[in-house]
């Protein structure tokens, strides 16, 4: 992982132990933060996702797949992805995936400092 990538290792809290099995096993317990520009938003079952492009200080670029719950789960929990428009610069925090450059979303911070939370969405 590029040194320029903002990665914060945090203590895994009991909160995450309630996550669905698939979420627990597809993602590590390491909490990371990645900045990037939204390239695509997929609102679907069984997993919705946000594709972002991260540009490091040296100019190199990598795509990150920020995964979240199923469309049905998000809908039932009142979480909508409408605010996540292509072209927006965001900072996403979540569990690092076992697949390279993937993450399970906890929170997004927009450029104006406002936040979008998907915590509690497990599948």
């Amino acid at each position: 992982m590029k040194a320029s990538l903002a990665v914060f290792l945090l203590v895994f809290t009991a909160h995450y132990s309630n996550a669905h099995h698939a979420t627990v096993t597809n993602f590590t317990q390491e909490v990371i933060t990645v900045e990037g520009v939204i390239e695509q938003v997929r609102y679907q079952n069984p997993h919705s996702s946000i594709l972002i492009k991260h540009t490091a200080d040296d100019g190199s670029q990598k795509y990150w797949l920020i995964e979240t719950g199923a469309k049905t789960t998000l809908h039932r929990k009142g979480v909508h992805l409408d605010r996540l428009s292509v072209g927006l610069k965001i900072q996403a925090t979540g569990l690092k995936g076992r697949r390279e450059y993937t993450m399970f979303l906890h929170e997004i911070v927009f450029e104006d400092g406002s936040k979008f939370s998907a915590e509690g969405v497990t599948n």
Partner: protein
Amino acid sequence: MHQLLRIVTVGAALIVLSIPAAAEPDLSGIWMLQGRSAERELVLTMEGRRIQNAYDLLSDDPSLKCVPASISRVWANPNVLIGIEQSAERVFISYEFYDLRRDIPLSDEDSMPDMPSTQNVDGRYFKEMGSSFARYKDDRLIIETRNHAPGYIRTSRGVPQSEQSTATEELWRDGDTLKLTLTYVDETLFEIPFILDHTFIKTDDTEVPLYECTDADYDWFENLNSPQQGSSR
């Protein structure tokens, strides 16, 4: 004395006769898993351990292709609806997860259909869900399932099922909740029966909506970061 004994005997018989026979449980409605499914002791055979050790969640999970890995996997998915309809001849279960429809005759094993009991709304059958038949016993619905295709009872840890696996589902009402105990027996995979317990709450929904599963294809994403794509500069 004989007269007294006769009165007591007749009285006891009348009391017994006045107790209604256990009615078939009313399981109809739309339900959702409450909490998580719980599993009891898992003791795998050597063959069971071999399959589990070879399992790679990132590539072997049938869920990646919108395929139900097993009956267990389908019952255990959170935040999705499950509809149950009962008639005199059959039980019909609609799972929102993967849009599965399971048609189970009330019959014995001799009348068990050869075809898998489960198909999705597009008409694709899933042998991973086996062929089932059902009966009522006391206040419970008992569903027996055979003829499975190999799959996974627990996709998170690669707990396998084989063609020899038999599954018994016991469903009953406990107040406002629906209880399910699912027992897998397979001498090739388990030293002791593998048992899972579930609780469901009734919802206010009137129908099971379409799920419209999309394959979790990661190839397109991994290609984005491959050197051939020139995404790294």
